[in-house]
């Protein structure tokens, strides 16, 4: 019986690990920025998961666009679900779509993360050398994403 309990807890830990995939999608449905966070600290096999994550995010875009038109809010909360993945979305004033794939609800953390990344995105857009709808390669931007991911998502 103790053995079964152990298995149960191990499974719970696995699910409660809290993995997040954040992507900014441009007007041409192209990814401008991607980053993954995982609180378990294990090295995620980026290539395998990245394709699936991109697929899920892409599939959710239509739903995001629908939700966007129905509400004045920028934060759209959960718009879609795929197996164990929730898809949350945030749309900026210029209709850039922030998508978050996550396996834990964490609504407050995700909302805060979106807001801070929105501020960071605005600063990025103000850079005269950055063209809108192109991939974001800025080291400063990546550092901010890592910082806020640790602060609001993985802890």
């Amino acid at each position: 019986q103790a053995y079964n309990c152990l298995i149960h807890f191990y499974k719970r830990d696995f699910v409660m690990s809290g993995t997040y995939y954040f992507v900014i999608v441009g007007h041409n449905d192209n990814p401008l920025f991607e980053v993954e966070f995982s609180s378990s600290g294990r090295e995620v096999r980026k290539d395998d998961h990245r394709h699936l994550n991109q697929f899920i995010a892409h599939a959710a875009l239509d739903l995001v666009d629908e939700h966007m038109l129905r509400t004045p809010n920028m934060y759209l909360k959960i718009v879609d679900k795929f197996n164990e993945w929730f898809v949350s979305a945030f749309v900026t004033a210029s209709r850039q779509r922030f998508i978050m794939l996550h396996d834990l609800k964490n609504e407050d953390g995700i909302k805060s993360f979106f807001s801070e990344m929105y501020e960071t995105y605005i600063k990025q857009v103000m850079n005269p050398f950055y063209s809108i709808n192109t991939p974001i390669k800025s080291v400063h931007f990546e550092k901010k994403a890592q910082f806020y991911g640790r602060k609001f998502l993985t802890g």
Partner: protein
Amino acid sequence: MSRPGSRLTDTKKVSGELFSLTYGALVAQIVKDYQSVEDVNKQLEKMGYNVGVRIIEDFLARTKEGKCADFRETAEKVQAAFKLYLNMSPTVTSWSAASDQFSLVFEANPIAEFVELPDNYADLQYSNILCGAIRGALEMVHIEVAAWFAQDNLKGDSVTELRVKFIRKVEDTVPAGDD
């Protein structure tokens, strides 16, 4: 008696952010137009020179001060001009032994507020317009100087340092344009 004049002067003020964005758009456009970064630096310096030769008249009219007795006074005037036109307060430091070179040190550079230099433009002197302006303005009061950036926040330095070097006094000769 109402003074509509005071309202007019206020509407001439422009937000600092708008100025930074305008300058940024200008630099980005010049970068697209010219192939080499060196050419861009030269263009920015030239533009600055054109601003400087004109703005000196306005500066002297506003400050109403007389001639500078020595280069140190010149440095103070340049410092005052930054405060007047850009609301920037650089410190004057690093005087050379012969008092012919000094530095203007800026903690932050407001015209480059949102700028991050891409890797292929690492040699770009983004604020070179300031160097040109100093050169142009001082040339109109018969002082020939060279101005350049010794340190730049955008390149990872902790401060932005603009170095000015006195070259010579320009004698009262016929201006270049008149033949």
